């Protein structure tokens, strides 16, 4: 969280890829790792990792969530920071692991683990203090902040600070940026009509900014918003911030 002192710049970091990125958006994950590697860090991707356990936890299946979370505790044994290209998964591991393991023999391990968790942009800004050089063509974008990134991780300004470093990128604020896109995991299929109304409104608010790309730090939101954009055949491109930043730095 932002109120803790700035951690020392480590020589190595762990990367937790998230299950959505693993299956659907691996390029976003690779970009996240590359952003860290080009800062001179050794990036470790434990092959044992799977999912943070949030889907089961949010649906009330705590035992199942704990079993999956325990595997992550095992998969990241060192004391390096764990960088996560998702505010939602990071929020699960940072704020909910301690309570998930309440009364469990692994509680202390879960608490220690949670303290090492960083959302990617938070890590880039708060720990690495990165400086980006924009090599891309002029483009107008808008930012979508995920709910858990904003309200569990306290990550609001960090991604925008990175985007503002890019000289050829015009960032247009969406007045409804803080509002949920309607994904909510199983919510999207348990209350499909409400979810559909929310994402339709979200896409309309993004479109109204005049941006040609919508950048976000969470693939759950991007799957929802991007899917709605594609279905409605809108001329808007959904992007994960890691991919976007890396691309700009490479001038593509």
């Amino acid at each position: 969280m932002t109120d803790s002192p700035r951690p020392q710049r480590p020589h190595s970091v762990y990367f937790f890829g998230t299950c959505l990125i693993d299956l659907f958006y691996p390029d976003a994950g690779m970009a996240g790792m590359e952003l860290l590697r080009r800062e001179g860090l050794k990036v470790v991707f434990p092959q044992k990792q799977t999912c943070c356990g949030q889907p089961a936890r949010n649906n009330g299946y705590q035992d199942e969530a704990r079993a999956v979370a325990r595997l992550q505790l095992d998969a990241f044994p060192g004391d390096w920071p764990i960088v996560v290209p998702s505010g939602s998964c990071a929020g699960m591991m940072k704020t909910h692991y301690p309570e998930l393991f309440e009364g469990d023999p692994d509680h202390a391990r879960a608490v220690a683990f949670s303290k090492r968790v960083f959302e990617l942009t938070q890590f880039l800004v708060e720990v690495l203090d990165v400086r980006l050089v924009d090599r891309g063509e002029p483009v107008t974008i808008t930012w979508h902040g995920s709910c858990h990134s904003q309200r569990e991780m306290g990550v609001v300004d960090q991604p925008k600070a990175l985007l503002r470093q890019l000289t050829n990128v015009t960032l247009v604020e969406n007045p409804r940026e803080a509002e949920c896109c309607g994904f909510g995991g199983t919510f999207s299929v348990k209350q499909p009509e409400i979810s559909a109304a929310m994402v339709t409104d979200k896409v309309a608010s993004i479109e109204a900014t005049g941006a040609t790309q919508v950048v976000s730090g969470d693939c759950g939101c991007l799957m929802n918003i991007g899917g709605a954009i594609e279905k409605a055949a809108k001329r808007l491109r959904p992007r994960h911030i890691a991919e976007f930043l890396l691309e700009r730095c490479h001038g593509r």
Partner: protein
Amino acid sequence: MAAEAKKSDFGGKAHVALNDPKLRANFRRAMDGLMAKRAIQFADPDEWKSLRARGAANRARALARLPELLEQLDARCTANGIQVHWAETTEEANAIVLGILMKAGAKRVIKGKSMVTEEMHLNAHLEAHGITAVESDLGEYIIQLAGEAPSHIVMPCIHKNKGEIAELFAEKIEGQVYTENVDELTAAARKALRGCFADADAGISGVNFAIAETGTLVLIENEGNGRLSTTLPPLHIAVTGIEKVLEKLDDVAPLLSLLPRSATGQPITTYVNMISSPRKPGEKDGPQAVHLVLLDSGRSRVYGDTELGDTLRCIRCAACMNHCPVYTRVGGHTYTFTYPGPIGKILTPQIEGLDCAGDQPHASTLCRACADVCPVEIPIPDILVRLRTEAVRPSATAGVKGGGSGRSAAETLGWAGWKTMYASPLVYGLATWAMGLVGNLMPDSLPMLKQWTSVRTKPKFAAKSLHQLAREKGFSDE
């Protein structure tokens, strides 16, 4: 709450609300306005943080000693001349109120705004026994004319725009011609209500805070109708849930600031009424008799669990619903029961039972907008998850009504399968490899994909997983 067995049908009612463009526009406009006004009130984050911490602490401290504070409240009120009644159920509370009115020979009642009496369906109960109760809060008056239930706990008729209210008044108020002029509409209601205040045999009100130390009933409002209802008629009956108690008068200060600023973005309310006794000898006004009805209605069961008990801190400001992206789109009537929005989603299943309202804790994206603005720090999203858990695997201690009623063999099996896949690196590796090969062949018509693809395209499985790419690009495993 209700005598009749009701069941939540969130999806079904949401379908109707979502397809009503006027309703959606009314809510969106109103909630946007309320959010903007609140944001101005709490522009200083440090002031918000410290005030909120004080408000939350005062409520938490009172709840920690709730049983003894209720005893103290009873004793202090009694000493002050206020007659105290305890009701375990809404039926009991209705019977108590009816009994008091009948004993006094009261036929006409004027009411200040009270969500607890909505929870009791008091008006219908009195009506059935030949007693007319007229709502005097403008919003409540409007929905009473329309024969509807409140759709918001602070602004009960927020679902209606002025055109709809103009039509209603022209139809229901004698001599009223159609006008959308807000001042004229308010004047029409005021004129109609004047006579009701003057003629009332009794006034009924809610309570915002009940102070145990002094036996004081605090009632805040904007229209003066609350003061008239509690001072003009010879008899005043205040009805409250047992959780509204505060330890001492000082405790009310931060809450008097937090409540209106959170609710409507007003710095203060127009009226703060503090009622501590009936009319004393030599005094010229005030009711001759004051009664306080303390209603439990499932609250003591909520109180029994440390985490769930935080639900009772609520001061009914409605900030959670004003900021809720779900409530904003479906409106208050979608929630079936008295309390809508995020607070309703945690309160209703606990009072009515998860078997009656088990769909409500799931009708949330857990976006935490509610938790962010709650002036007494109720962790609503965490309680939602807790209730989802109680619905499938009830804890031995909590005893949430209807616990376990959400269990289904299919879902249990689904999550067991999920665990098998994600708790084993080997199974996970095989499964992701297989999905990369054939996942994209899944037809849109599959159960969950069908809902998803109603407004979105199907997510596309990548040919190579991140695990695989990381290996190929030489990222270390340890």
